[in-house]
């Protein structure tokens, strides 16, 4: 049974068709790339999977269960968590509190517990803080724990976004342009991190424009253009595919 499966997925906003009939499957433990020119429908697909926008037609199944009708918080509870293209953080919070907030699903919370500070609540909160420290060390932000999120450098803010997603203990992670706006050694660091995340057993699907990152990381790549899938396969097969080159470079596809 596939980890993530889209069948006949359609996404329409008013007259605009962002995704026109997409069939796609992702297997467990895979690092899947999703590439295509701007406006191809990549982020729209992520928005559909995460429940941010309602699905116009077709179906999305995660581990066999239909999630295309669910609300974002229910989908996150199923283990499918996403990050965002633009930096989205809890700006006023400290780095540590950002990740603690992200850990909501896995720390018991009750209003009475919060009020009376019962032992269970204190333990849950301590456990949450400990888990957050672990994740921050894993991601490499251990030293910046007490800094306010808004004061971090761009690269670190992207890393924090991933840390927050990891705090939700996902089984599958949708990374939306993790290396956008990063220089080469920051990208190299990100590649290394994604590999280490996959080793913990989390399936990954990522949208990325930096071909070096995509080719280096992904086991399989799907290419979208104007909401349709035009290619699917190993990185080498996709690079050689004429249609992909044409979609990216426009009509002068024959340029070497």
């Amino acid at each position, binding site marked *: 049974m596939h980890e993530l499966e889209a069948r006949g997925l359609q996404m329409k906003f008013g007259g605009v068709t962002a995704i026109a009939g997409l069939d796609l499957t992702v297997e467990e433990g895979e690092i899947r790339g999703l590439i295509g020119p701007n406006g191809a429908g990549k982020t729209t697909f992520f928005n559909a999977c*995460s429940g*941010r926008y309602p699905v116009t037609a077709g179906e999305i199944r995660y581990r066999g269960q239909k999630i295309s009708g669910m*609300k*974002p*918080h229910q989908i*996150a*509870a199923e283990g499918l*968590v*996403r990050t*965002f293209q633009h930096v*989205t*953080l*809890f*700006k*006023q*919070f*400290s780095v*540590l*509190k950002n990740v*603690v*907030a*992200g850990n*909501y*699903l896995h*720390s018991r*919370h009750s*209003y009475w*517990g*919060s*009020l009376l*500070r019962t032992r269970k*609540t204190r333990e*849950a*909160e301590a456990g*949450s803080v400990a888990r957050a420290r672990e994740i921050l060390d894993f991601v490499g932000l251990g030293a910046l724990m*007490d800094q*306010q999120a808004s004061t971090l450098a761009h690269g670190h803010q992207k890393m924090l976004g991933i840390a*927050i*997603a990891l*705090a*939700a203990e996902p089984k599958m992670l949708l990374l939306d342009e993790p290396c956008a706006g990063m220089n080469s050694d920051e990208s190299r660091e990100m590649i290394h991190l994604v590999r280490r995340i996959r080793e913990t057993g989390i399936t990954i699907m990522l949208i990325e424009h930096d071909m070096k990152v995509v080719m280096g990381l992904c086991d399989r790549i799907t290419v979208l253009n104007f909401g349709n899938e035009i290619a699917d396969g190993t990185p080498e097969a996709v690079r050689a595919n004429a249609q992909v080159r044409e979609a990216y470079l426009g009509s002068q596809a024959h340029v070497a």
Partner: protein
Amino acid sequence: MDKSDIIARPNRLVWGGLLALALVAPALVGFDLYMIHVGITISFNVALATSLWMIWSLGVISFAHAGFMGIGAYASALVLTKLGLSMWYGLWIGAAVSALFAMLIAVPLMRTRAVYFFMASWAVGEVIKRNFAYFKDFFGGWDGVFDIKPPVLDLGFLQIDFANRIAYYYLALFFVSLTVWIIYRMNASRTGTIWWAIHENELLAQHTGINVFRQKVVCFTIACTLVGVIGALYAHYQTYISPKSFDIWKSEFALVHLIVGGLTTVGGPVAGAISLTMVDEALRATGYFRTIFFGVVLIASVLLLPGGLETVPARIRKLFNRNSQK
């Protein structure tokens, strides 16, 4: 933890000091009944401002706040005048009724955001007030409800008649401290983290698994229940309530106390409510100029003290450090 937590962490010395000062205050002012009345008014305003701050932790301001205080007040008043049940029952009935209405109204209200929420809550407050005025036979219309007797606490060996103002001062102080403690405790815990996460970035909060809609409804309901209880206390203290006691000006002054006090910690509304209630009472002797002076104080504190009274200690600490470094 983070910036807001450091300030919010129980600085026991400060909160203990304030509570001690409040407990001793009647003796300090030589049991001057008028000053004790000012003390009771301060307690009500503190509770009103802090419960409004609780809603602000979601990122929105509710202008229906005085309306829900009215619901609590009318519920406990009518329970007394019509069914003869004393305030000890009226408090809980008032709390339950405003909680019920808060939940019913929160479901549609929470679909709105930022300024739209603000305007929608204003409309809710107006509808609540004008329904008190319209249903003459049940709510007493614009005449309001008369002689809401304060209760008598009968502990067998001790009878406390709360018509005595000093007794009522301590009763009000107890309920207000309870309210501030509840709000402070909820904020300093995981619940506070959830609500402030919704405040900071609702989209991200939803995608990390927080059911934002349910959290908003729960927070709104708790805040309105707390203000309902204060409404019941207010009714039994004033012994007379009318729709005009819960009009928009009360919500506006609660907001003003919040803004002048400071928006980031629970210390803000407490400081704002205490200082501005004193200023308003002190200006009473200035007759015509009262509203004018209050307007000037309001504008001056917003413009000259961005961030509100709660930033004063941080500013002094900075000043203090700068002097010591020189």
